[in-house]
């Protein structure tokens, strides 16, 4: 068997894509719906912003079909800040992805938060020069997305709830599965790959290295600095915060606090200080009480 790992065989652009994800580590990527919010996020210390028309909590509340944002909005946000700008396309909607690449966004999130455009297939992300991030609930889903070309993975959580329970469950699941396959004898890995629905080569790489071949971030339900630090202690390398900031009473202060909590996630004394007097967090809804038809995390194949 070849000693060369899957990720060592990828084209040169791969290193550049994963490289940008590496640069975002230890940071907070914030959802913003206009240039003004983007500036607040940058001022608070966000490493990147996600440009979208509605935050997940509003998509949830208003219903309807959620699509890629208007390019006008994305351009306004690109003009407003110097940090990377990300944007979302629908699962499988490779034309939305082509448009986002043409706009020069720095990362595309093929996201379950938008209404899926394809109920069987995701975008083939190796065809693009721009890097992609995709959500996952378990290791198999993560490795399928990476094989398709995702340069960053985020555990999904349940977006727009302000409830951290699903984010925790998905991160624990991925980390547990990584630990499990690390200890399997090599002859069991093919069956493990089959059962997870994951490419064998990538299963081999994870078993040998004990981590995903791309950075693993956390998303979906982070509302407080403590939530962010919890996800970091559980193994996240950075966090996405969607509704949690701009659905709270004092977005600027909360945004800044979450940035600091991700840096000092292992320092409870600092976290106590950081968590003090932030104003009301987003109200939120219990993710476990949602019927399956309203769960976003189940989208993805």
């Amino acid at each position, binding site marked *: 068997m070849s000693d060369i790992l899957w990720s060592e065989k990828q084209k*040169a652009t791969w*290193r*550049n894509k994963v*490289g*940008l994800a*590496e*640069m*975002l*580590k*230890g*940071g907070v990527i914030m959802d913003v719906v206009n240039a003004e919010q983007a500036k607040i996020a*940058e001022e608070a*210390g*966000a*490493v*990147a912003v996600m440009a979208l028309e509605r935050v997940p909590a509003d998509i949830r509340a208003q219903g309807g079909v959620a699509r890629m944002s208007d390019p006008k909005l994305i351009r306004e946000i*690109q003009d407003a800040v*110097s*940090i*990377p700008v990300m944007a979302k396309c629908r699962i499988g909607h490779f034309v939305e992805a082509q448009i986002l*690449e043409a706009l*020069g*966004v*720095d*990362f595309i999130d093929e996201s379950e938060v938008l209404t899926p455009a394809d109920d069987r297939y995701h975008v083939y992300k190796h065809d693009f*020069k*721009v*890097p992609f991030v995709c959500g996952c609930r378990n290791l198999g889903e993560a490795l399928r997305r990476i094989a398709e070309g995702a340069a960053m993975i985020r555990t999904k959580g349940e977006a727009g709830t302000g409830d951290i329970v699903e984010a925790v469950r998905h991160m624990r699941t991925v980390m547990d599965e990584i630990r499990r396959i690390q200890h399997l004898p090599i002859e069991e890995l093919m069956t493990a790959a089959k059962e997870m629905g994951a490419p064998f080569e990538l299963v081999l790489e994870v078993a040998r290295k004990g981590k995903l071949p791309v950075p693993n971030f956390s998303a979906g339900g982070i509302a407080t600095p403590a939530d962010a630090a919890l996800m970091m202690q559980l193994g996240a390398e950075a966090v996405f915060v969607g509704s949690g900031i701009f659905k709270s009473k004092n977005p600027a202060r909360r945004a800044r606090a979450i*940035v*600091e909590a*991700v*840096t*000092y996630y292992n*320092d409870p004394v600092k976290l106590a200080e950081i968590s003090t007097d932030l104003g009301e967090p987003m109200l939120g809804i219990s993710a476990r009480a949602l019927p399956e038809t309203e769960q976003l995390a189940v989208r993805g194949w």
Partner: protein
Amino acid sequence: MAKVGVLALQGDFEKHIQMLDRLGVPAVEVREKSQLDEIDGLIIPGGESTTIGKLLVRYGMLEPLQTFARGGKPIYGTCAGAILLAKEIEGSHQDRIGVLDITVRRNAYGRQIESFEADIFIPRIGELPVRGVFIRAPVIKHVADGVEVLSRFGDDPVLVKQGNLLASTFHPELTNDTRIHAFFLSLFPV
């Protein structure tokens, strides 16, 4: 043995620690100003320069780092690290350590789709090129007298040195080539 710190507020600090590890040098993650007294030199990683700058200010590390640099201790900044070391950042008032006599322009090659790799020749460290990984990289537009340009890509300096300060606009920590890190370690007093 010299004790090397890697600023670990945000960014790809882990990759630098891995490089140092390959060279047999243990590194410490630096998040507190008090740690600066315990190290002989510092790497400032790639990441988001505005984020790292703000955290440096909020946690009172900016002035101690300026003192650290002026005291002659070696510092190496990659990409965002180079921006934070630069005295001048075109069109920006963002927080910085500001000790290296260069002027940089952020994101000068463009957005992520303009990120690239190229062979970089650095005679000081050997004949074979280094694979330069440029990610939303800055360009060094001007260097003052006393700043040595160790390498250029096209017309622009990409690796510069001024006394104890070293800066690159690319990311050797994302490759397997440890020569630039070894060169940085050679700046430490014996």
